[in-house]
């Protein structure tokens, strides 16, 4: 049975990864009809939501699990997979368990998590630092210190795309790394405006101010263009999630040799358990419903998990898979994961509305040198105070 699957995985590494799923699904005798929408989740989600609410749902669709599909589930537009989950014992397999919790509403499971994405990485170009004659930094502070040297060598210290989600993502990464998960959760889970406006977070905005200066000359839009600058050695580093790793891989670079990755910016090695999940809208056609189940099983299957996550550069959601083939950086992630040093990420904590406001703020912050860190923090506190 043909099943249309929509997602926004269109960059090189991503497309290669998703092809693994498709292959596995096609092997079950069904057919994966690819509905990639380019751009980013921001472009694709409106289309997906319109189609679901418009009564023309696809067979399955990617969302970041968390709150993006919350209302669709509440409206009863999504299929619940509690039975299948029980049959295949997802509860036991999925690690960390928060992943499945994010898919659960009123005790029912509505989505299939497929990977763990962690934002908290900085990717460094060994070549750039060699060119500048400074050692590859081991944490954010060293990186900031190395900035002038890189600049002198004609490099852009920090590569950063000009899309708002990258900029606010960077802020969150800095926050998690500098003030630690507890304060992070106080801000995003408890939505404490006091903390958000407090001295702890002020340090974060100070760091963001540094990042802003380091990235001032970075003139690209897309995250993978920024990654390309790191790969090519024109830029020193990039704060980006683990999906960036796919690009390094496609470019044939070797972790540790050509590039270096620092989880938690080398300050606070914790991994957020955000990630992607597939949701399955309710369909009338029983054939397709069956295909949906098949797809859900495939997504959770060991082989598909391994193949997909290797290509994608993310971590598998099953605790029982063997990733001996994983590279350096992935292994680092796996270790942290195994140590249980995980935390929730913003997708799960704040609504898209708040995310949008944050994006707006950070995009303004990064492009407006006259907006001081203090002023930006005050507005940040306001947004957090008003968040739902």
């Amino acid at each position, binding site marked *: 049975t043909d099943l249309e699957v929509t997602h926004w995985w269109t960059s090189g590494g991503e497309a290669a990864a998703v092809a693994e799923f498709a292959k596995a699904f096609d092997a079950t005798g069904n057919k994966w009809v690819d509905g990639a929408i380019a751009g980013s989740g*921001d472009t694709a*989600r*409106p289309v997906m*939501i*319109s189609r679901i*609410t418009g009564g023309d749902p696809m067979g399955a669709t990617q969302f970041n699990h968390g709150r*993006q599909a*919350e*209302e*669709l589930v509440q*409206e009863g537009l999504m299929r619940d997979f509690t039975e299948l989950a029980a049959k295949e014992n997802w509860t036991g397999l999925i690690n960390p368990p928060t992943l499945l919790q994010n898919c659960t509403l009123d005790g029912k499971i509505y989505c299939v998590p497929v990977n763990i994405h962690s934002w908290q990485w900085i990717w460094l170009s060994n070549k750039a630092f060699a060119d500048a004659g400074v050692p590859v930094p081991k944490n954010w502070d060293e990186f900031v210190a190395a900035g002038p040297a890189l600049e002198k060598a004609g490099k852009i210290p920090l590569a950063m795309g*000009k*899309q*708002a989600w990258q900029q606010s993502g960077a802020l969150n990464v800095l926050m998690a790394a500098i003030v630690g998960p507890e304060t992070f959760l106080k801000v995003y889970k408890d939505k404490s405006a006091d903390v958000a406006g407090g001295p702890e977070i002020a340090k974060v905005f100070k760091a963001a101010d540094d990042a802003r200066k380091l990235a001032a000359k970075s*003139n690209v*839009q897309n995250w993978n263009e920024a990654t390309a600058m790191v790969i090519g050695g024109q830029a020193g580093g990039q704060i980006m999630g683990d999906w960036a790793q796919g690009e390094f891989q496609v470019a044939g670079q070797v972790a540790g040799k050509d590039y270096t990755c620092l989880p938690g910016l080398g300050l606070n090695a914790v991994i957020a358990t955000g990630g992607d999940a597939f949701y399955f809208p309710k369909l009338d056609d029983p054939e397709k419903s069956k295909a949906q189940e098949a797809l859900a099983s495939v997504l959770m299957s060991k082989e598909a998990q391994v193949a997909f996550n290797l290509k994608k550069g993310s971590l598998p959601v099953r605790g029982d898979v063997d990733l001996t083939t994983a590279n350096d950086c992935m292994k680092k992630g796996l270790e942290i994961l195994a140590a249980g040093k995980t935390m929730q990420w913003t997708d799960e904590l704040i*609504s*898209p*509305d708040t*995310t*949008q*406001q944050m994006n*707006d703020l950070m*995009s*303004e*912050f*990064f*492009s*407006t040198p006259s907006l001081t860190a203090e002023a930006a923090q005050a*507005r940040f506190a306001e947004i957090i105070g*008003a968040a739902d």
Partner: protein
Amino acid sequence: MADRTRPSGLFKNVNAKIASIPMILTALCVFLGGTLWTVVYSFTDSKLLPRLRFVGLDQYERLWSAPRWLVSIENLAVYGVLSLILSLVIGFVLAALLDQKIRFENTFRTIFLYPFALSFVVTGLVWQWILNPQFGIQHIVRSLGFESFTFDPLYNADIVMYGILIAGLWQGTGLVMCLMLAGLRGIDEDIWKAARVDGIPMWKTYLFIVIPMMRPVFITTLVIITSGIVKLYDLVVAQTGGGPGNASEVPAKYVYEFMFRAQNLGQGFAASTMMLLSVAIIIIPWAYLEFGGKRRG
């Protein structure tokens, strides 16, 4: 003598009414209904899906305290005024030049008009590239030896709207020129002759006689340009995505993003309502002038 009674009003012209059903439905259900629906839901706290939980003016308060919205409004105002004036001026000047009984008129006209055939997405992509400092004009000029030359409108928050304007004008002035040309061709030839006999220089004839006579054309053009300006979206998305920062945000983009991306329909509807309101302020007096007075048939 069988006196027929006056036929009932409903069945008079019944064919015309049947034929107008698509129009009536569109007008009532889509434009009027959609507008009212939007306005009503702008007073709710609808998120991903519309729901009738009224929160009064909350959405509007938030809207008008959002820096991004204020920037959007300001940008649209700047872009709107400039694009209106410039496209009228450029369009008229081009039309006037083409009206000089020149050779190759067809060629020139086609050249000025062809960008209109291209979508804003295409326009935005091309100009994004030409204005890109690494490859485009800046690069060229620098490689000619002017090392300090800077021309990076799309990367400079202060002038990004002008960068968009360049592309917008490129795409749109051709149509304006066409309209103006049609208007110029409609001017009584005797007026030109009278002005020549009176010894009035060409530019003065245009300025003081012809332009005032082309009022209806200018009004039509104005409406077309204005309706395009209000909808400005694709071009910005394709060219800058609203950046750098939010320096080139526009209201239509704000609406779109809050409705679909931020999943805050209420906020999006509130912004839409403000846009509709401003449209109404522009268009109602115009519609009154254009269609209110004259009748026929």
